[in-house]
């Protein structure tokens, strides 16, 4: 598969994005029945005639799901329908108990909204076409070594997930993102995730599937206005994957178009190794034969109810950010870095645990960001908690460790060696504050570097740095450099 360099691709083409995000609601029961809506139960233990679609069964709408849908719509600045219906989306698949999905078609509960995102100082206005309610299907497991559908002799179905309430949020085509397209997509999904958490409607864990993203992208040759054919990429299971997948698709499509080829309108599958492969062809679109769901009656939320729900909305992320920036005293650039690094929550928690905003920012955006990147995980997934980070900073503030040693403490906590204090103890990382030991080390350094010592005596105080370095090495870093300098100057000055 040939790929064009990303920058070259962006010279020739303008990417146009389309993002479809599915949010699994955290209602106690399913969308249309009273089965528990919980992750991880034994197969087929959370099913009933309704979600199994048994002959004769009928759906009844979960009131809390409607409430969550409306709140999500409001938080996305959408209009809420005065009157809308569910519709049947008809197609056959073994994970579909009724072989139709009860969804919404031309009457979504929320529509015409928007989200304003800031990415690296640039604001992108993302239009939300609709947010609608639907139900999830069961889960398929494929036989055979690879677990891949193409290699399987047969498959096994667990219907626990069938009937879970979903909200599907669809953007209008997103133009003008240029080279930032992958980041904008990632920022958008990250924003939705923050929003859902703030609303308390979903635990939005991409690794568990309670937040899913299908990323659509097409390329418009520069100067043209007609949209190109797009691909839809599925199986992007993390924020990083969204960015990587879009980066890949843009490069792949650019290469294809540059060679005079055609982009196939199709669904592609993202592989974590770093590429996409084609799946179902969208050229012959399946005919879903939508019609209004006859087993359910229309949903007509009163304006009073909508306004009452509007009153329950939490602080919108943009407003929260402004407030935090003010409280923390960050510059715009510092705030941007924090947002882009996905560090707002952890910084907030670290500050709550007693650290200063600047120290929290420093740790999360430098040392910890580096480690997260290396491990390929999000900050929140690192094996160190915000309280522990605050504890590390407290150790530095108390003089127990210096910055360099603090990094080793962090390494120890991440490695599972215990709390910061335990790591300091176990590894013997405490800064030596015993002047006697330090003085002895200073003597050894002076003795080993007589010419440097001479220069210091002559008044070239800058040379002290070399001696400080020697002492620090001698002390295996477990010394306060400032105190060492004092001792050196006192001895030689």
């Amino acid at each position, binding site marked *: 598969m040939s790929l064009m360099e990303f920058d070259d691709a962006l010279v020739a083409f303008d990417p146009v994005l389309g993002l479809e995000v599915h949010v699994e609601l955290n209602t*106690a029961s399913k969308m249309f029945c009273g*089965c528990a809506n919980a992750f991880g139960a*034994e197969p*087929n233990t*959370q099913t009933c005639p309704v979600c199994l679609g048994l002959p004769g069964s009928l759906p*009844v*709408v979960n009131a809390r799901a409607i409430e969550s849908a409306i709140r999500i719509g409001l938080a996305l600045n959408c209009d809420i329908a005065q009157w809308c219906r569910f519709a049947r989306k008809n197609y056959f698949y073994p994970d579909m108990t009724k072989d139709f999905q009860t969804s919404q078609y031309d009457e979504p509960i929320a529509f015409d909204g928007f989200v304003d995102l800031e990415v690296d100082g640039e604001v992108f206005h993302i239009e939300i076409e609709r947010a609608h309610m639907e139900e999830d299907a069961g889960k398929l497991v494929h036989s055979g070594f690879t677990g*891949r559908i193409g290699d399987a002799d047969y498959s096994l179905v667990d219907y626990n997930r069938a009937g879970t309430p979903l909200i599907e949020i669809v953007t209008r085509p997103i133009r003008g993102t240029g080279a930032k397209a992958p980041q904008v997509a990632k920022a958008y999904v990250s924003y939705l995730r923050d929003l859902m958490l703030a609303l308390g409607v979903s635990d939005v864990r991409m690794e568990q599937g309670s937040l899913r993203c299908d990323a659509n992208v097409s390329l418009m040759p520069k100067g043209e206005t007609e949209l190109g054919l797009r691909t839809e990429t599925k199986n992007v299971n993390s924020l990083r994957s969204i960015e990587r997948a879009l980066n890949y698709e843009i490069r792949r499509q650019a290469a294809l178009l540059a060679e005079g080829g055609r982009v196939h309108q199709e669904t592609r599958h993202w592989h974590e190794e770093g590429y996409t492969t084609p799946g179902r062809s969208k050229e012959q679109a399946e005919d879903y034969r939508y019609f209004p769901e006859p087993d359910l009656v229309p949903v007509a*939320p009163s304006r009073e109810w909508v306004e009452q729900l509007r009153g329950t909305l939490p602080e919108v992320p943009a407003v929260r950010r402004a407030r935090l920036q003010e409280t923390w005293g960050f510059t715009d650039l510092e705030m941007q870095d924090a947002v882009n690094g996905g560090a707002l929550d952890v910084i907030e928690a670290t500050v709550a645990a007693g650290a200063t905003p600047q120290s929290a920012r420093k740790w999360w955006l430098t040392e910890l960001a580096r480690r997260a990147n290396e491990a390929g995980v999000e900050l929140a997934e690192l094996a160190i908690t915000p309280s522990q980070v605050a504890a590390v900073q407290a150790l530095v503030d108390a003089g127990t460790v210096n910055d360099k040693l603090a990094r080793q403490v962090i390494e120890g906590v991440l490695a599972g060696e215990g709390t910061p204090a335990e790591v300091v103890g176990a590894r013997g990382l405490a800064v030596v504050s015993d002047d006697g030991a330090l003085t002895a080390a200073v003597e050894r350094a002076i003795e080993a570097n007589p010419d440097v010592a001479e220069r210091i005596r002559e008044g070239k105080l800058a040379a002290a740095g070399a001696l400080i370095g020697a002492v620090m090495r001698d002390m295996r870093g477990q010394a306060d450099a400032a105190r060492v300098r004092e001792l050196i100057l006192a001895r030689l000055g």
Partner: protein
Amino acid sequence: MALTTGDVGRLGELARIRLTPDELAHLAPQLDVILQSVATVTEVATADVPPTSHALPLTNVFRDDVVTPSLPVAAVLAAAPATEDNRFRVPRILGEEA
């Protein structure tokens, strides 16, 4: 509006019903006749007439978000043509990536 056997066969596939050549031959003209007679609805279904999807004007029928007991697994699987590991076993699926 004449339906060919090809049309009927395609509709059959869409509905996941394998129709024999005999059935196809039989069905196409029958369906044609039926469709012609029902097409009369367009005569009166003018733009100013709203559609009715429900006999009664009910709205907002909801249930509280309360968990109720599920079926025991044995009951769920009892009628299954094939099972394995407490899951429904289904024949291999073509074409799509999961």
